[in-house]
Each structure stands twice: as structure tokens, then as C-alpha cells.
């Protein structure tokens, strides 16, 4: 799968319904180790590691978008 296809596959253009609700239940259950990732901090443009937050203390992360 090309990078372009991956982008278009993930960022669907038409909402048809969320099918991932069952898969969520077995992924990263309570008690498991959280997954680390890199992301860009909107406010500064810096690249940050998510683990930097849980090294400092507890972290509540919400996922979402404008729409």
C-alpha cells in the first residue's frame, strides 16, 4: 500500500459508520502498558513523545477532531 493510499484509507472522505468498537475492547486493556507515539504539539510545533507526559504524572488523553 502506498503512502498516498494509506492516507486516503485512514482519512475516509465519506462517513459510513464506525466499525472498530469491538476491536477496541481487546486492544490495550486496563493494566496493560500504554503505547508510546510521537506527535506534533500544536501550540509550539515541537515533536513530542506521549511517554513524556506519563513520566511526569498521570495523563488523561482524549482522541477526537473538530467534526
Amino acid at each position, binding site marked *: 500500500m502506498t503512502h498516498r493510499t494509506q*492516507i486516503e484509507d*485512514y482519512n475516509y472522505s465519506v462517513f459510513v*459508520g464506525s466499525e472498530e468498537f469491538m476491536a477496541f475492547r481487546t486492544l490495550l486493556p486496563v493494566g496493560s502498558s500504554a*503505547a508510546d*507515539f510521537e506527535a506534533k504539539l*500544536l501550540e509550539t510545533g515541537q515533536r513530542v513523545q506521549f511517554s513524556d507526559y506519563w*513520566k511526569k*504524572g498521570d495523563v488523561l488523553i482524549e482522541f*477526537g477532531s473538530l467534526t
Partner: protein
Amino acid sequence: MARQFAPKGINFVFLYTREAHPGENYPAHRSFEQKLEHARAFKAEFNVERPILVDDLTGTAHKLYGSLPNMTYLIGRGGRVLFRADWTDPRTIEYAINYVLNSRARRREGLRLAPFYAEFVGYRWNDPGKFQEGLVRAGQQAVDDFDRAMKQRLKQGPRPGRIELPE
């Protein structure tokens, strides 16, 4: 809520993902700059004070956590998942955080509390008017796509994973 719990060592962050309901005003992302623009619009629209992390264009972080449109995780210091929910509900989050903080406080007082695995069904306030406002903000395409998806869902039965409970 972030301000309420900050003194107790809870950091709140938001991860900006793909558009759940793309429309004419906020279409599906095709460039990272576009995704950043949408994240800036989100911050302004909802006056978000929490740090906003923007995921990459292929949703690497989002996929690691389940790809759902509005889920929440509470990660304990050191990186263990303490709580998670497939929908974000402030009342449930507050309950979970207070439960963790109270349990720790009781352990510090010397009470012998052993951690265990638990699950429960959450109840969230479902506001169709507010949801419709969000679709309209995205554009008419988002309104039409959602309407079409719900009609299709009615034909197919409840979506997999939907929890139906009697009153």
C-alpha cells in the same frame, strides 16, 4: 476539569485525529498542514486549553489506541492503562480519576488495597441537537453522509459493540 485535577498531578492532553464526519468545510485530510489548520480551528471553536497533540497523517497514534472517534484513556504515571472508554464522557472521567486518587490516598494511609481488573458499562449524555450542530459545522455532506449511514444501520441492526440495556 483539567484545571481541577492539575494540582493532583493529572495532565490532560487531546490527540487530534482524522475528521470523523468530513464535509465541505472540514474535508478529509490530504496534507499535514491541512490537519494542523483543522486542529487550530478546533482549538479556537471550543476554546481548548489542554495541549493538543496532532497525530500524523496516517493515524499512527490513533490506530495504536483503537481508531475510535472520541475515546479516552487514563494512563498512570509509568505508563499503565488505568481506565479507558470508547466514548468520552466528562462525568465518567471524573468518576474514574477520583476513584484512582481516592484509592491511592487510602493505600497511603495504610489500607491494604490490592489492584484488580474491572469493567463497567458507562452512561453518557447523548445530545442529538449538539451532535447535529457539529455535522452542520462540517458541511452538508457530513449531514447527508450521517443520515445515509444511520438509514443503512437501521436495515442492518445495531452496530457491533453497541450496548443496549433496559431502563
